Structures are given as C-alpha cells and as structure tokens.
C-alpha cells in the first residue's frame, strides 16, 4: 500500500462519512459518522507528516469533543429530526443555490491558485515531535499560555452556563 493509496482511501472515507453525518437525521448517528470521518482525517494527517496533530485529533476531537456531543445528546435525549411540511422552502432553495455557487467558486479558485501556489517539495521525513514541541514552547509560548487561560475560561463558563438555576 503506497501512502498515496492510503491517503485516497482515508480522504474518501472522511468525505463519505461527512456526507453521512450531514444526511443522517439522527444526531447520535451524525456524531458517530463524524467520529469515523475525523479518524480518517487523522490518518491523512499522519501521511502529511503531522503525527502529533493526528494523535491530538483523535484524543481531543474523537476522544473528548465528540464524546461531549454524545453526552449532551444523550442527556437531552434529542429526538430525530422530523421532516416537517417543507421547511421554509425559500430558505432551503436559496441555501442550496448558495452552496453550489460556493462550491463552484471554491473549485475555480482551487484551479486558479491552489495547486500552483504551493512550493514543490521533496519527501518529508517522518514527522518528529521534538521540533514541533520546540517551536510551540519558544515562538508560540505566549499563545500557548493564553490558550490555557482560554480553556480555563471555557471551563468556568460552561460550568456557569449549564448549571441548573437554583429554585428560589
């Protein structure tokens, strides 16, 4: 199996399960489809010489964020989306049109700029963690620390938001 093949398979799976995620009407299934999609993305990350990001992707996204989603879904016991009589048809049609236009524009710009702008490169050595870590803790140290404060704020904020209001 060449890396190229692996990439194609992984990317294909990611796209496929992303579609499943969007199409499926049950939120829990959507989450699971997204887990698979993200897992496949992690594989592509490994192929793009970013094993650390791949691991973080699995640990944080698949292992924490999406579990959180599942958790909330189960907690709220969200029902399946029921297909109502046409849900704001104008909005749906406009949205669909806009999405298609956007996709076309994206494709066009990809053709115009995307592939040509990247510098051609030789084989990348298999990603080593140390340089990334060194970069993270030197040049981006301040951002890293700021991030920790952001996470703390998010922790406190979500706690306050989700707390049941005490009955008077």
């Amino acid at each position: 199996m060449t890396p190229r093949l692996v990439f194609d398979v992984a990317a294909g799976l990611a796209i496929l399960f992303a579609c499943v995620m969007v199409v499926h009407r049950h939120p829990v299934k959507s989450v699971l489809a997204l887990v698979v999609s993200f897992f496949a993305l992690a594989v592509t990350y490994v192929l793009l010489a970013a094993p650390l990001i791949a691991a973080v992707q699995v640990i944080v996204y698949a292992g924490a964020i999406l579990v959180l989603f599942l958790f909330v879904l189960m907690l709220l016991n969200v029902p399946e989306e029921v297909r109502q009589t046409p849900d704001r048809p104008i909005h749906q049609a406009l949205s669909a049109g806009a999405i298609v236009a956007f996709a076309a524009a994206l494709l066009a710009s990809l053709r115009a700029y995307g592939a040509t702008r990247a510098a051609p490169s030789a084989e990348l050595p298999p990603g080593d963690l140390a340089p990334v870590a060194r970069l993270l803790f030197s040049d981006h140290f301040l951002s890293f620390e700021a991030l920790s404060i952001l996470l703390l704020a998010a922790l406190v904020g979500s706690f306050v938001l989700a707390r049941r209001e005490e009955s008077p």
Partner: protein
Amino acid sequence: MTVALWIVPALPLAGFLLCLLLGTRLGKGFVSAAGVGSIGIATLAAWSRLLPYFRDGGGAVVERIAPWITAGNFSVDVSFRLDPLSALMVSFVTFVGFLIHLYSVGYMKHDETDAGYARYFAYMNLFMFSMLTLVLANNFVLMFVGWEGVGLCSYLLIGYYYEREYAAAAGRKAFVVNRIGDFGFLLGMFGVFSLFGTLDFGDVFSRAAANPGRFAPGLTVVCLLLFLGAMGKSAQVPLHVWLPDAMAGPTPVSALIHAATMVTAGVYMVTRCNALFRLAPEAMAVVAVIGGVTAIFAAVIALAQNDIKKVLAYSTVSQLGYMFLACGVGAYVAGMFHVLTHAFFKACLFLGSGAVIHALGGEQDMRRMGGLAPKLPVTYRTFLVATLALAGIPPLAGFFSKDAILTGVFAANRPILFAVGLFTAGLTAFYMFRLVSLTFSGRFRGSAEVGAHVHEAPTTMTLPLVVLAFLSAVGGFLGLPEVFGESANRVAAFLAPVFPPIFLPGHEVARHAVSPAKEWILMGVSVTVAAAGLLLAWDWYAKKAGRPAERLAASFPRLYALIADKFRIDELYDVLFVRPFSWLARVLWKVVDVLVIDGFLNAGAFVVELVGDALRFLQTGNVRNYALTFLLGIVALLLIVLAG
C-alpha cells in the same frame, strides 16, 4: 540632628490623611490626637530647625526633594527654601496654627458629630500642609500649589456648615473671588517665566538684581498681575468682598485662615518678590494706593457693623491694607513685621470672640451682648490686651509694627497716604473700643436665658488666648524702631538678606530716611490719634451706651446706611457681574443648549430611529438566515476575487 524641611509640611499631610481615612471610624479622641498632634510635632520639628537659624542667621538654604516637571528648558523641582523670610513665616504659622488647633479641640468638641469633627481637623491639617508648602516653596509653581491648597481649604472650611445656605454661598463666593486673583497670579507666573526663563526664586531674583535695566520694562505688568493674585488672597479692594462673608466658618477657622495666616500670603508673596516689585515703581505705587484705600475703606465699614466677627473681619481687611501700604512704599520689613504682630493679636481677638460666641451659645450680634467682663475674666483680659495691641497703644506689639509702617510711608514722602494711614489708625482704635465696650461693659442685653448660661471657656481654649495675648503684648520688642539703637530692630536685621541690593538709579533701599527727632514726633502723633479714637469710643459706647453714635447716625441717615451696608459693593457686583452672567447662562441654557445642541442630538437620534425601524425587519433572530447571508457575502467576495 537637623530636620529636613519637607518633614514640616509632611506631618500635617499625614495628619490630614489619618483624620480623613480613619477619623470617622476611630472617633474624636483619635482625631484630636492625630490632628493636633501632627501640628504639634510639625511645630517642634520646624522650631528645632528655626532656633539655630534665628541664632546664627544665614542665607537661603534650598533642599531639593525631587524633580517634578521637566520639559525642554523648563524645569520645576519639588524643593523647599529656608531663608529669613520663610523662617519668619514658618515660625508663627506653625506656632499660631498649633495654638488654634488646640483651641479647636475645646471649641468644636460639643458641636459636632464624629464625622464632622474628623472633617474639620482633616481640613485644618490640609490647610497647614498647604500653607507650609506655600511658605517654604522654592519656586513659583510649588508656591502656587500651596496657594491653591490654602484657597481650597478656605473654601471647604468656610462652607463647613454646608447645610446652612449662607455658609455654602460664602464658601462659593470666596472661591470665585479667589479665582480672579489666582488667574492674575498664574499670568504673572507665566510672565516671570517668559522674562527670566525660570521659576526658581533664587534664580529669578538674582537675575533681576544682577541686570535690572534689562527686565525693568516688562516687570510692571508682571508685578501688577502678581499683585492681582495677592489682592484676591489678601482681600484687597475691590476683591475684598469674600473675607467678611468668610466668617460663616467656625471661629477658629476665621482666626487661623482668615486673620493670621492665609490672608497674609499675599503680603508674603509681594515681599518674596520684592526684587521684582522694586524694579517696577508704578506697580509699587499701585500696591501702596490699593493698600491705603483698603485700609481706610474697611475701617470705615467696620465702624458700623454689629456682628462681632464682621467687625474683626473688616479690621483684618483694613490691617492687610496697612501691610500692602507698607510694601507699596518699600517698607517691606515693616509690612512683614505687621504680619507677625497681626497674627498674634488678631488670632487672639478672633479666638476671644469665639470664646464669647461659645459662651453665649452662638450669639454673634453685639447688640445682644454687654457686661460680659466679670463672667469671662480670662477672655476679657486677653481680649483687651489684643485690642490695645491692635489699636497701637505702646508698648504693645501693634504699636511698633504700625508705627514702623507709618514711618515708612512718611519716609517715602507720600503725605496723602500717610494721612490716610494715620486716620485709619484712629478709626481702628475707635471701632475696636466700640467692640470691646459693647461686648464687655455695660449690662447684658441678651435674653435672660442665654445670660444665665454664660460660662468661661475650657482650658484648651483659654490657654491659647493667654499665650497669644502675651505674644501680642511683647511681640513688638522684636522690631523696635531705630531710635532705640542701630540693631534694635531685630526683625529688620534678620530679614536684611531677603532684600538684595539693586543698583539702579533711584531704586536704592533708603536707610535712615527719618531722623530720630522726626521719628519721636511720628510716634507721638500716632499714639495721640490712637488714644483719641480709643477714648472717644470709650466715652460714647461704655459711658453713654452708644447714644452719641445713634445721634450722629440719625443726622446722616443715608451715609450711615451706606456704611452699614458696606458701601453696597456686593450689590454693585451683583448688578455688574452676577446678573449679566446669570442672564447669559440662561440664554446659553435655553437657547444654545436646549434648542441647538439638544436639537442636533435629537435630530440624529430621530434619524437613527427611523433607519432602525426600517432595518429591524432584517433581524429575524433565526441563525440560519444570518448564516445564509454570511455565505452569500462570501460567495460574492469570491466571485469578485476570481473575476478580478
């Protein structure tokens, strides 16, 4: 051990902070300790520095604390200056200040709540801090800080009984009138800087003295502006109107701020700048004339006042006029000497009047007093000594200082001003004895209820009275006239370094201008005039219960009414300034503010409201609509980029 100069103002500042921050919580005992203690220690600190200085004499000592403002070639330091002039001021400011603080403990104790008591002492301490900063400052800017500080404290303390309408109004009035003077002072300061390029006292005066011809032309304006500041602070005509009203404050405040210390800041400043004034003879002339006019003008008003504190207030104005008269004719030593003696006896008088008011439960109208001498023996005796001193009866302090001024005026060859001064001396003796007679002799004219409760003041109040009376009696010996010997005038000898020699034709400092014989004659004349005024008042008010005066008033009713109404200066100002301004303010309010400014705002708000009414339909609250709009925008942008 030498105490650094900055300690002296710092201690009252500490007292101020303590009283302000902790006073209300910790109660009157603490406030008394902190408020009076800080001044006491500051007095000790100052005197530990001053005693050697008085003994050894010496030049100016400058102690630089820190650089303050530096901009280009303009630099101002926080630095303090000890020279004979500031030493003299500090000596009595601290000492008299301490006595009055001590007196305040007894005076304020029963009147006020803890909060009010703390507020009172906090302001008093702040005042002491400002006053000492003013006196010790080594440059115009720092002096201005003190200048504004004392003005602020004056305002705060006049309005101390802020719940009373007239007290608040009096405070406001003092503030506004003082601002006019401060404006002059500021402009004068700018002028000094533009002329000399520095604001440091030492540099300015030495440059002025070294090169008098160069600076003399511009100095007249600068000096007049500075003098405008002094007029505001020292209540000279026509800016005198605030001081009588300032009596709305507590009596110790009147004694300290509006008699002994703050109001003399103008005299101090003019004396401090003598090197400049002496180069501007026209300005000197203005100072002398304003001083003389103020002296007689206020004395005349004092004749017809019935409020005991108002009489003393006008007397203060009048005496300040004397001081400026002295400065104006070049007799700075005499002026400063009068500042010193005046501080003693006028403080004593105010504190004595405070004791009387205290004894009568707040009564200030002399028509409802009388016969208090036996009931208030200490107050009466000290008050009498201070009155005699003020009236200029030898050998009490006032005699020597006033005589020095009159001699100075005479020597300066200003016969009209001399006559004015002499006549004012007579008036002074008259109205002061009128006051003493009405208050202490005869029979009690107030209600029986009040009369029954009359009692002598507590020791904290009488002790300062006795000390000040003693000083009023003997203080004059510090500045004996020259007929008693070359070095008899210790004050003049001590202050000599403050007056740098200026070698400009016609500006030499005159010495031995008056021969001893003439001087004896002048003394005799002034004593005679004072004694005449004194005896006349005694005769009219003590013996004949004021009937001759009533008759006199009845024969010139309009003139009497005019004098009793203080020449209606306030009414004049009301018509000239207050009402036009009030009218202008109303126009600005009703027309400019309400119609124009508010109109613009309302119009803008109206347009915004209209637009908002139209646009609010876009706000559906549905997040998908927003997302769609967002996407459409992005698509449009992408298309533009691709097309471009």
